[in-house]
C-alpha cells in the first residue's frame, strides 16, 4: 500500500539563505495550500508528518534535496500517483508543477514517486553527497595544488565548535573525492575564482562545504556551494534516493580523483 510520496527538489537562488527549519515550514504551508491529504503526527500538538533528509547548510544550494510526505490511510488516491510509477511521467509531472507553484521562488520540485511499504529514512540511508563548489581567492592552478596536498595528507584537522566546546576533527576520512574543474567567475573586486567538485561522506558525521574550505586554507572564500547528488551505497552499488533513472554505479566527473 502506498503510504508516502518521496520528492526530489532544488533549492537555489536567494532562498538558499534560509535554514533547514525555514524550509520545513515552507513545505508545510505549501502542502496545506495544496489541500492534499497528509498524515498527522500523534501527540499534544499534531504536525504534518513529513520527513526531510540531510539538512542542507544555510547558504548552500542544491538540486538534490529529498523529502518524504507521509499519507493518511486511504489518502493515496488524491495524490494521483500509482505504484510503481516513477519519477517525472504523468501524474508525477503534474504534482511537481503544482507544488512548485505553491513553494517560494527557487524551490523547484523535480521528481516525485509513490512509496509503498517501509523504506528506510533518508537521514540514515544516504552515505555521501556530491557537491559543486565555487571559491574565490586563488587561481584554479593554485587551488589544484591545495587539493593535491589535502588529498595526500593522512589527516586534515579543523576546529569546530560543538555545544560551546572547541573540538578538533579530522576531515580527511570523509572526503571521498575532491578536484578542481576549472576557473569560475571572479569576485566583484577581481579576485580569481575556481570551480571544484567534491564527494563528502555523511557518516560518522557529515562534512560541510564550509569546513572543507577551512581545511583547504582560510584565504579561500566559499562563494557558492551546490549539492548535486545524494548517494545511497549498499553492497558496493550506489543509487539515488529516487530511482528515476535506474541505479547508478559511478557518475564521477572526468576530472575527479578517487580518494583511496
Amino acid at each position, binding site marked *: 500500500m502506498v503510504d508516502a510520496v518521496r520528492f526530489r527538489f532544488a533549492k537555489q537562488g*536567494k*532562498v538558499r*539563505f*534560509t*535554514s533547514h*527549519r*525555514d524550509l520545513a*515550514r*515552507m513545505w*508545510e*504551508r*505549501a*502542502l*496545506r*495550500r495544496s*489541500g492534499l491529504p497528509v498524515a498527522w503526527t500523534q501527540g499534544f*500538538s499534531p504536525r504534518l508528518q513529513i520527513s526531510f533528509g540531510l539538512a542542507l547548510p*544555510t*547558504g548552500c544550494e542544491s538540486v538534490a534535496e529529498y523529502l518524504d510526505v507521509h499519507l493518511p490511510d486511504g489518502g493515496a488516491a488524491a495524490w494521483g500517483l500509482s505504484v510503481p510509477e516513477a519519477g517525472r511521467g504523468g501524474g508525477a509531472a503534474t504534482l511537481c508543477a503544482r507544488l512548485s507553484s*505553491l513553494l*517560494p*521562488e*527557487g524551490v523547484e520540485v523535480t521528481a516525485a514517486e509513490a512509496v509503498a511499504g517501509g523504506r528506510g529514512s533518508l537521514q540514515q540511508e544516504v552515505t555521501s553527497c556530491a557537491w559543486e563548489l565555487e571559491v574565490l581567492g586563488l587561481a584554479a592552478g593554485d587551488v589544484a595544488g591545495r587539493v593535491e596536498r589535502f588529498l595526500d595528507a593522512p589527516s586534515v584537522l579543523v576546529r569546530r565548535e560543538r555545544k560551546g566546546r572547541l573540538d578538533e576533527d579530522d576531515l580527511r576520512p570523509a572526503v571521498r573525492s575532491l578536484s578542481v574543474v576549472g576557473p569560475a567567475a571572479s*569576485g*566583484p573586486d577581481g579576485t580569481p575564482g575556481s570551480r571544484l567538485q567534491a564527494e563528502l561522506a555523511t557518516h560518522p558525521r557529515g562534512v560541510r562545504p*564550509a569546513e572543507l574550505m577551512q581545511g583547504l586554507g582560510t584565504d579561500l*572564500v*566559499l*562563494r557558492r556551494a551546490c549539492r548535486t547528488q545524494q548517494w545511497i551505497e549498499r553492497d558496493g552499488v550506489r543509487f539515488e534516493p529516487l530511482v528515476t533513472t535506474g541505479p547508478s554505479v559511478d557518475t564521477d566527473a572526468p576530472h575527479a580523483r578517487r580518494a583511496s
Partner: protein
Amino acid sequence: MDSLWERVELLLGSVSKPARYVGGEQGARDVVHRAGAVAWLLIYPDTYEIGLPNQGLQILYELLNDRDDAVAERTYAPWVDMEAAMRSAGVPLFSVENHLAARAFDVLAFNLSAELVYTNVLNLIDLAGLPVRRAEREGGDPLVLAGGHCAFNPEPLADFVDAFVLGDGEEVVGEINAVLGPWKAGARRVEDRRRVLAALAGVEGVYVPSLYDASFAEGRLVGVTPRGPQVPAVVHKRTVADLAEWPYPRQQLVPLTEVVHDRLNVEVFRGCTRGCRFCQAGMITRPVRERPAAQVQEMVHAGLERTGYDEVALTSLSTADFSGIESTVRDIVQDPRHGRRVAVSLPSLRVDAFTVGTAAQIGQVKRTGLTFAPEGGTWRMRKVINKLIREEDLYGAVDAAFSQGWRRIKLYFLIGLPTERDEDVLGIAELGARCVEIGRRYQRGVTVTASVGGFVPKAQTPFQWFGQDTIEELARKVILLRNACRGVKGLTLRWHDPEATAVEGIASRGDRRVGAVIERVWRAGGTFQEWTERFDLSLWQEALAAEGLSLESVVYRDRSEDEALPWDHLSAGLHRDFLWSDWQEALAGTGVEDCRWTPCYDCGACTEYGVEHVVASALPPAGGSQGTGQDLRTGDRVPVRFVTAVGAGRQ
C-alpha cells in the same frame, strides 16, 4: 538605480540568519521604479524578525504600491554583525526587494513603535549615507518621515526627522504622496525642499518640526510654537472613520524565515475605550471601530487559503471585547473550508470578557498561549489605573482556561504605578498563587507566569504628569515580589530590567533636548538598546550628564498642571482638561466607564473629529461588569453607529 545584490550576497555567508536580508516573501511586490512614482522606503528600525509582521507597515506598503504615483520597498535594521560587514564593505542600507541603496528613494519612512529603537533610527539614517541631523541634509537627500504611536511625543527625534505623521496612516499617506510628487519631478532641488516641507505642514496630521521653535527658560520647556501664521499651532491626528473600508493587508507578507507572530493576523477592531489610564494606545486610537464580522470571516478565509498558515490571530487592543467574539471564533474554527485545523489566537484578552465558551472555541484545535493582563495587584490599584476587573473576573477567566485544558497561562502586571504601595506589589504574588491553586483543581503541573514591567508614563495619557519610579525603587519592588513568589510552586516571576524602564522614560516624555542625548548614545555605539544583551545604562547616563540633563529632571519628576509639556502642540483629540481631571480621579481612586456602552464623557476623541464608535453590539461582552457595579445596559445616549452588513462591492 543599480541593485546592490551581488555585493550583499558576498556578505551573507558570514552573518547570522542571512535570510533576513533577502526578501522573497510571499506577498512582496515586484516593484518597478519609474518617473512620476514617488519611491518610498518603509523602515522598521528593529530586526527583520521583529519588524516584518508589523501590520501598519504592511498596510502602507500595499496602499502605496497600489497607486500609480508611488512605489514602496521595505527594509529593517541589520543586526550588528551584518552592519559591521556592510560598513567594512562600503555597502549602504538597502531595500529587501530590489536591494537598492536607501539614498535612491525619495522618502525614508520609519515606523516608531517603541522608544528604545530611537538610536537605531539614527543609525539607519547614517547607514543610508545621510547626515543624521535634518538641518544638515540637502536638496538631493531623501526626506525622512516617521509615524506610529511614538509620534505622539516626537520631540526627542525632532532634530533628525523631517516630518512626523500622527494617527491612522491609510488616508494621509496618499495626501503626503501627492505633495511629494512635484518635488520628485523637480529633481529634489534644495529650494524645493523648504517648499515641500511647508506643503507637508499643511497636510492634516503632519508635523514638520523645522517649522516650530522649542523654547526653554531656566532649564524647562516653555513651549513649542509655530514659526509663522501659516503653520498650524496644533497638529491633529488622523482617524479613519470606518475600518470596513480598509480590509488591509489583503496580501499579508509570508516571510521565508521565522519571525515573531508568524501566523495570519487579522485586525478586528481599532481603538479601545476601556480607559486604562496607563495605556497610550487606548488613549490615542479612540474611538472604537469594529470590522464587520462577515468581513473578518472573509479576510480570515482568504488569508488562510493564500498563505497556508494554520493559525490566525484576531488582533486589536482587547480582542475579547469584539462584538460577538464567541461566534466569530466558532465560525472560524468550524468553517468546513479550513479543514478544521485552524488555531485561533486572541493576543490581547480582558479577563472580564473571556468566557468558558471562548476558551472552548479557541482550545479546539491548538491551545495557543493565553495571556491575561490584570496590570495591578489589588483592587485599589486597579481602580487608580482604571483597569476595573475584579478578582472574581480574573479567577473566572483562569478557571475557564484551566477547565478547557490549558496548562500554562501568563499574567501581565505593571509596577511603579501612581500611588502604589508595597501591598499592591505583593498583591501580584497573591493573585498569581491563587491562579495556580485554581489550576491545580483541574490538573497537576500547571504553571502561571507573572510577567512584571516597570511603568513608563506616556504622552497624551492621564498619567503624563506622573513622576516615574526610580531604578532603585523599581528594583526594590522587584526584590520584594521575588521574595514573595519564592516557594510558590508553579508560579514563575519574570520582570523587565528597571534600568531599561528608566531609559524608555527618557524618550517617552523627553523634550527636544533629549535628541542630543540619543545622538551621543548612538555615536558611542548604543544601537539595539531594546535587546538585553546590547542595552547599556552607562551610555545614557554619560550622555544625559554631558547635555546637562538627568534622570531626575527628565524621568522621575512629577509635572505640574501648568507646566508646558513637549507634546502640547500635538493632539489625539483628547482635551487637556479631560486628561487632567482623569488624572485627579485616578489619584482619588475613582473609575470611569467604557463609553462605547455608556454615555459619552467627552474626552474629545470623537467630538473633535466628527467620528464615532462603530460597534455591532450596544452591550458589553458577557460577564463584562467593568467592575464598577453600575448598570452598563443603559447605553441609549451613546454616540454609537452600528456596523451594517458589508456588501460585496465594499470588500
